[in-house]
């Protein structure tokens, strides 16, 4: 099945602009998507963003589906689903 990955902000420098089509096995989970991301972009992402050992984003990088942060790597994906990858912003109030 195919899903779409869309990077927001600075992440587009590494993951490309627009929606990137990713081919996954039928019934794939988030953990499968992360492995596919590693295969395709793992080598270009800086070490502060991506951990190739665990195949996970590091720091405040979140996968988002339907405006909700994905917090479960066993979440099953659907055909045609769009997954956003974005960062929380560092900032401050004084």
């Amino acid at each position, binding site marked *: 099945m195919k899903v779409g990955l869309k990077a927001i902000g600075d992440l587009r420098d590494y993951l490309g602009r627009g929606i990137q089509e990713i081919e996954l096995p039928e019934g794939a989970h988030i953990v499968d998507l992360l492995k596919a991301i590693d295969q395709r972009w793992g080598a270009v992402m800086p070490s502060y*963003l991506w951990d190739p050992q665990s195949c996970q984003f590091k720091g*405040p990088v979140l996968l988002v589906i339907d405006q909700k942060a994905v917090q479960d790597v066993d979440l099953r994906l659907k055909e045609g689903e769009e997954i956003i990858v974005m960062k*929380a912003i*560092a900032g401050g*109030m004084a």
Partner: protein
Amino acid sequence: MDNKFRGYAGYQLRVNLTTKETRIEPVSEALQRKFVGGAGYAARLLFDELKPGVDPLGPDNIMVLATGPLSLNQVPGGGSLMLCFKSPLTGIWGESRVGGNFGPDLKKAGFDYVVVEGRSEKPVYISINDHQVEFHDATHLVGKLVSKKSEVIRAEIGDRKASVLCIGPAGENLVKIAAVMSDDRAAGRCGGGAVWGSKNLIAFSVKGNRKIETASPDRLRSNLQQAFKDIKDNPMFVGMKSFGTIGDLAGNDDGGDWPTRNWQSNSWGKGPELSDHYSSQNFQKGFGCYTGCTMACARQVHVEEGEFKTPSHGGAEYESISCFTAYLLNEDMDAAIHCTYLCNEYGLDTISAGAVIAFGMECFEKGLLSQEQLGGLELSWGNARVLPVLVKNIALREGLGNILAEGVRNAARIIGHGSDQFAIHVKGLEGPAHDPRSGKALAVTYATANRGMCHIQPLEGMAWDRGKLDWGLMKYGVPDPNNVERWEEQGKGSVVQLLQNGLCLPDVVGTCKFYMYGGITIDHWADFISGLTGWDMDGVELLKVGERAINMQRLFNIREGISAKDDILPERVRSIPAFGKYASEQDCAVRDLEGMLKDYYNARGWDPITGIPTAQKLKELEIT
């Protein structure tokens, strides 16, 4: 006397430190509807009551401790209090915000605002218990650090849970970058601590048991419950909860949003290793700064051992750490955490402290400091060991610290030799740890923010064009940030105008701005306020309230001599970085600030030459 007034406590406490008189004054519902609260209402009051040209460190300066109608523990972000005053650092509108329970506890004590005027002959602290107000001798507290002061005051008033606001030694020494502290939370910017010190005001404590009368309690309860559900899985909410404000230090470095070496660059390359050290060695857990906070973005941190050993405390915020690392080329995260802990205890603004030290380091590098001024200190870039010494010297006005305590603008005047060229500030307020070379909207907000070079009050501009946040404001005309390039400049002035109107609202309604990042919108607030007060308020009206607040503050500043000539950005901050990842990136330089400002003034309805609100705009906003 009972000022029946749904949604508000209905009173402000006026404290005259000279006469030791207090007055409980009813607040007008009509005025609250117009200005709502916080920095909006405070701007109206200070414009009306402060004479122009008043000495910020004299008895005629007034400070307003301002809640908003939503400064309530049950509201998302409700643990909030604004301090508004004429700033001794800048001579203009001064405003700082502190998280924690003081704001909601002030409401429980039966007050929406406290208005502080005059000057006490001797050091005092003031306890507020419901409507009972007492002055206490504070001579024995002078010189004590913030945590000790708070402990002693709680013991003396017999309530360990009372909220306490106090100054540290920095405020007592009239250091112009002194903060007002609530435990480890800071009303940091603009030198409010020095205003308290000038008044011999050492602390406030507050507690109470009163309730706010609510117009539609069921509607309010239901809206609040829904709002908490709405944001629970919001990615920004999850990110802030999981990682705190420091979470993307490395990303900001990589993205060119990390002012480095006194703004000579916007990127350093040390972000990842500093971040890794913090995660593995310093971070203990997250926590909420007020009772009821579900975002819990505050960080409990420590330095377990070594030269910079530091007890467990709330700290390691992005701004504080950045101003003690990248600003100074300090590669020692333990030293940075130790210094920001010292800033908390001595009552110093961490941003300005880091900024003045960076300025001092550049002066040292250029040989502009005499041996007498240096007093044997070596202010070389990256010298971690000198940093705690400097923090204490600034707080105690000792040696070189006595010059740096004045802030970079005044310090440059004292040191001379052209050092004003690298004293990085706008309108006297030192810049924080975000760089407009990462996203040009920030250039406009730095140039125009009413308290000076501020990224957050009202608006963190690069969070829109670089970070792609819209804060729910697209329905009010903000362009989709996903269709905007961060280094593009055209048209951003008018967008910043609209974003400022929206993003100043947390400072008016009395909430933490990060909840707005996490999915709470101005529509939520309008709903909450309507449920509280019975007013039929919507987002359109609230945006007008925000616009009114900004214009009121601008009028305050204009009366103090500010105009378009002061809406600037230092040349270094506009220039291509001198080194680092973006040193060859022509597009990141701020090319046409003047064009963006023209667009901004036009959108604001201000005179395009002077930057002064027109009579027509003031009439539209019903500001006389």
